[in-house]
């Protein structure tokens, strides 16, 4: 892959990788570390014949794996609030911030599945294929993640 192609990949899929890493790691420095790692690894891939979806799936899988490596041994830092990540002016987007914090408080494996389903729009089968885990596992994690979110966010909101 040429650096020109890498630039294009980062433009198309950079936000996807960055948001997933931030959600999973809840730490900007770690997420940036993973971001660089993932795209530099992409450089080393023989991806001449990959289409857009394949590239994106590879990036997502690699991001999840690298987050798992980093996440386990770090001192767990407090969650990173949404306001630190966006450049939106006040007033604080309290509902958005509450959602981000709620997902960030889920156990890491639930977080991943919930984020990929809601932020990226992947179905449980697509997530299962991307992460090489059984569909039933994805469905369970999604279901339990939703249940926990309902409890955290309160109310009967249909999540």
């Amino acid at each position, binding site marked *: 892959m040429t*650096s020109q192609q*890498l*630039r294009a990949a*980062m433009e198309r899929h*950079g*936000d996807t*990788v*960055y*948001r997933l890493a*931030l*959600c999973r790691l809840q730490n900007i420095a770690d997420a*940036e*570390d993973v*971001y*660089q*790692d993932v*795209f*530099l*690894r992409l*450089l*080393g891939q023989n991806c001449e014949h990959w289409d857009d979806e394949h590239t994106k799936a590879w990036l997502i899988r690699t991001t999840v794996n690298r987050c*798992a*490596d*980093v*996440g*386990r*041994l*770090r*001192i*767990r830092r407090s969650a990173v609030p*949404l306001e630190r*990540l*966006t450049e*939106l002016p006040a007033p604080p*987007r309290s*509902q*958005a*911030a509450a*959602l*981000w914090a709620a*997902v960030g408080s889920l*156990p*890491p*494996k639930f977080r991943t599945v919930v*984020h990929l389903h*809601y*932020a990226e*729009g992947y179905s449980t089968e697509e997530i299962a294929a991307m992460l090489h885990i059984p569909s039933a596992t994805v469905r369970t994690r999604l279901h339990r993640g939703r249940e926990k*979110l309902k*409890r955290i966010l309160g109310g009967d909101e249909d*999540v």
Partner: protein
Amino acid sequence: MYDYKEAVSHIHVPQRLNRQVLAACESVPGKAPRRAFFRAAVCTACALALVLGSVTLRSPEGQPTAVTSDYHLGITALAADLTENHTLFFPIEDGAIRFRASAQSLTASQGTLSQEGDIYTLSPTVGQAPESLDGTALTLSAGEQTEVYFLTAENARAFVNESGREVLAPVLSGDEQGAAPVLYAATSESRFLSWPVAGSNTVSLSNSYGTRQTPQGGVFHSGIDIPAQRGVEITAAESGTVTQVGWNDTLGFYVTLDHGGGLTTLYGQCQEILAGEGNAVEAGDVIALLGSTGMSTGPHLHFEVRENGEVQNPVAYFSADIRDTLRAK
């Protein structure tokens, strides 16, 4: 949850980050940056404890087996039952882990495995820290039987238990002082306890498990304290039978469960016990409400784990995924 997608859509990669990646790839094409692994400072006493460490395993017959510096891993230890619950801790010595295994064939999915008699040494790839063995699958076969253990890297410390014996157990984030990285092995069938207080992820640091020195001498706390609001539901950590519902002035209202195989759990300082003696419960069933009865300075669950009557460190009985969500405070 369509709002979540909207919320997240406002997060963008800083351009500086993309420039860094492009700069890196232009200078050294294809090379990924090396990541530093966390290493905690290890005090001499703890280092010694880790080297000599003894680990209490839970066998299917309920016999606790104290293992000293020979960490036993193998088909003979499992007997014929492949659905084992063993969690074995390996301290990292000289950058590698050592264990005894009796198997006809043993392979590791990463790292370098060497063997001398029935003692195996597993070293990480040259240049990598031992913690990089995290996720390694160890496959043991003997005749028709095969078992796969997965290694997890975590920070652990030696805890002094009631009988004065030192036992390795993982530490929670917030309580890492004196801990060192270890690798532990569990099978995909290993059963772990469920967390008994949903929604509450803190474990008291000032009154943690184990022996603590005070001016009056050593004080042993036989469980962990999980602070939460009065009235919060306490759930069974495992399925089993309710063996005792009672009250005393230390524990307040308490309930004990028998999970079979010599494993029992105790839930103390409760406001109210909802389960009755003799009831059969499933993991996750509500058995009590949290309170501050007995000798307690604030509402919390006092949670104990015992193997054949011997007090254990409860933290070791939860999976790494659950420990990842907990904090000592």
